[in-house]
């Protein structure tokens, strides 16, 4: 009799958890992709942990606080590592609605991922979309900071160039009048000091007197 009951329970459970059964979800793990050499083997202990995590998630749902690990059924475990699971109610005759399971998993997705060292891509609940992380935008977009730096440099450089140009022009405007004065002085020198013509005055003792170099030759005119 007991054997019959045992087989009946198993049969019912097998019926509840089947690929594409009602309220069943497929889970796919990519452990080697995520962990590489540190990948662990998927065995019954890991399955137990999984059931525990699902049960824990369901307990957070109002009115389902009494969910036990035994209410979570796993089936069709493949080498891929993929399997189907359902969550039954305490009577173990019906499965809980998919919507409740879905919302429970979504809310605790992070905890479930962390338990297995996986993330949303390597631990997939097919048909349960994961909530994407909010975009981590800094308060000031980085490009504005770089733009500010570049803009300031350009403004400073332009101002410096314009100011130096104004200064150069002012010096150039003063320049020709100074040259006239020295030319007058030169003529005076000829009358005062005889024998010294103006021409060699620009090469006094071998040094070139810069006063006689016109601004045009020294600075490229604007």
């Amino acid at each position, binding site marked *: 009799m007991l054997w019959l009951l045992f087989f009946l329970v198993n049969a019912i459970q097998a019926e509840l958890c089947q690929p594409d059964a009602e309220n069943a979800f497929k889970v*796919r793990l*990519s*452990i*080697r*992709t995520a962990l590489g050499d540190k990948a662990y083997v998927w065995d019954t202990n890991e399955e137990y942990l999984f059931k525990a995590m699902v049960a824990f998630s369901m307990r957070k749902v109002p009115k389902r606080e009494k969910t036990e690990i035994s209410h979570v059924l796993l089936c069709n475990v*493949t*080498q*891929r*590592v*993929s399997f189907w699971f359902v969550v039954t109610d305490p009577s173990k005759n019906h499965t809980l609605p998919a919507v409740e399971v879905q919302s429970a998993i979504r809310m605790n997705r992070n905890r479930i991922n962390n338990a297995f060292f996986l993330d949303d891509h390597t631990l997939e609940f097919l048909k349960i*979309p*994961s*909530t*994407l*992380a*909010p*975009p981590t935008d800094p308060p000031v977009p*980085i*490009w504005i900071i*770089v*733009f500010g730096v*570049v*803009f300031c440099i*350009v*403004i400073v*450089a*332009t101002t410096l*160039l*314009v100011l130096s*140009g104004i200064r150069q*022009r002012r010096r150039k405007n003063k320049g020709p009048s100074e040259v006239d004065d020295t030319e007058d002085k030169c003529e005076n020198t000829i009358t005062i000091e005889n024998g010294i013509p103006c021409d060699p005055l620009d090469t006094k003792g071998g040094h070139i007197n810069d006063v006689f170099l016109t601004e*045009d030759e020294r600075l*490229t*005119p*604007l």
Partner: protein
Amino acid sequence: MAQAGEPGPPAEDGGDERPKWDNKAQYLLSCIGFAVGLGNIWRFPYLCQTYGGGAFLIPYLIALAFEGIPLFHIELAIGQRLRRGSVGVWTAISPYLGGVGFGCFTVSFLIGLYYNTVLVWVLWFFLNSFQHPLPWSTCPPDLNRTGFVQECQASSTVSYFWYRQTLNITADIGDSGVVQWQLLLCLVTCWMVVYLCVIRGIESTGKAIYFTACFPYLVLTIFLIRGLTLPGATEGLTYLFTPKMQTLQNPRVWLDAATQIFFSLSLAFGGHIAFASYNPPRNNCEKDAVIISLVNSLTSLYASLTIFSIMGFKATTDYRRCLDRNILSLIDEFDFPEQSISRDDYPTVLTHLNATCPERVARLHLRACQLEDFLDKSASGPGLAFLVFTEAVLHMPGASAWAVLFFGMLFTLGLSSMFGNMESIITPLLDMGILPRRIPKEGLTGLVCLACFLCSTCFVLQSGSYWLEIFDNFVASLNLLIFAFCEVVGVIYVYGMKRFCDDIEWMTGRRPNLYWRVTWWVVSPLLLLSIFLSCVVLLAQRPPRYKAWNPQYVQFPLREEKLYPGWVLATCVLLAFLPILWVPTIALAQLLARRRQRTDTQPATSPKP
């Protein structure tokens, strides 16, 4: 107008001394910087790839020898001899040809507007490259954070970043949208940088050119070394450079080679004339012309090496991802253990599964992955820089640094071309004495940059990139060809071949040999005429259309082909023909003025036209 048969001392330039280059290197670098531009990076490699790899070099070199170098020599020689900008040179050769100078001036202005807009885009990408991960590596999540934004998911992350987050493009050219403030900020900055560099004419550009002309070569070398070490680079290089000689039978190849040489050397802008006018009168312009042209072409080749190796890497990466996607689909469907199918085993496994359970395999809709398909995906123009290359950079370790380098290189490349462009606008204005003497040069350049900035704000509207395409297709092509033709004809036939050869002999010490004379007399004008006619025929063959980015389009992410509305077509025609109208207008005005002069002064020494 120079009357004397003997080439006398250089023509007067208004009384005060003309600015001159600090040294020969500045002049060469300025010309090289002007010639080497964005087209060398994103147009030449595309042409090379489309037209049979190494085989394309044959029409390219032929066009260089018979069209590029002779025309370039004419520009440098005439600028150096007459020591004026484009307007002054043509007015000096013949008052009736003054329109050519005005036309070149107008075209340079229009091209400067949209060329700087490309620099705005480059600057935007440059500013956004200083972060990790790069903003075009992921899609933003949608409103309830269950998935990514639909437009991004349907196309790709880089397309979304380019079309939506950068341009915020509208679906139709008629819908102008609003000004994109982030692009407007970059536009202000770009024009300020240009102003900063051209503020004192060649005195300031001569200093800036050392950096802007040399930096791109440094970056190209770095990218080449990095690119050659990436997986798939050699496949890219061998596939893309393997010559396919049969493509040479297509006349389109020869046309594209000739147009590429022409636009690559930046002929008929008036910029090279302006640069050469600041040279000392006795300077070997023949050697300069050959050197600069060769450097330009070698740069194109060098750039294609870099681009092809990176494209090879990108194709290999895409191919491997395609394979991995297919393998994952198979593993998930048949529940094989993870990583049990390697990329090499994939074909055998696929055939085995196809034999055993074909319906399940068919249900997966596996995409056929062929490396050649990925290598064939070519792009030119902005698409190469902002879509293809940005995606390639994502897969390289240290992506942010490579992105910063790449966009910095593009910016300096474009900036050095902008210097030549601005010189071809500013030098004629200075020569004509538009503004009174007391306004300094800084004021003139400031006014020019301000005017250009105000006019180019139309390109930062949401439909701006459609307008840029129009400018690119219609302003540059036909006008420049006509002006180049007028240049050759004007110098050789109006100024006189003999006088021109005498001038060159005076300047360089050697008379131009047979090669120059034959190309100037016959070959180059004929080539230009045939290119012009071919361009006109090609444009007239079918109504011009554009590709719009329309998320509502049925076949999105493919771009929707639309025809231009009537008012846009009218603008295209205007842009294509208005600059050319200067030539007959000025000639007519001169004719009328002379006729009036003749009737006014009765016993006139009739002026020789």
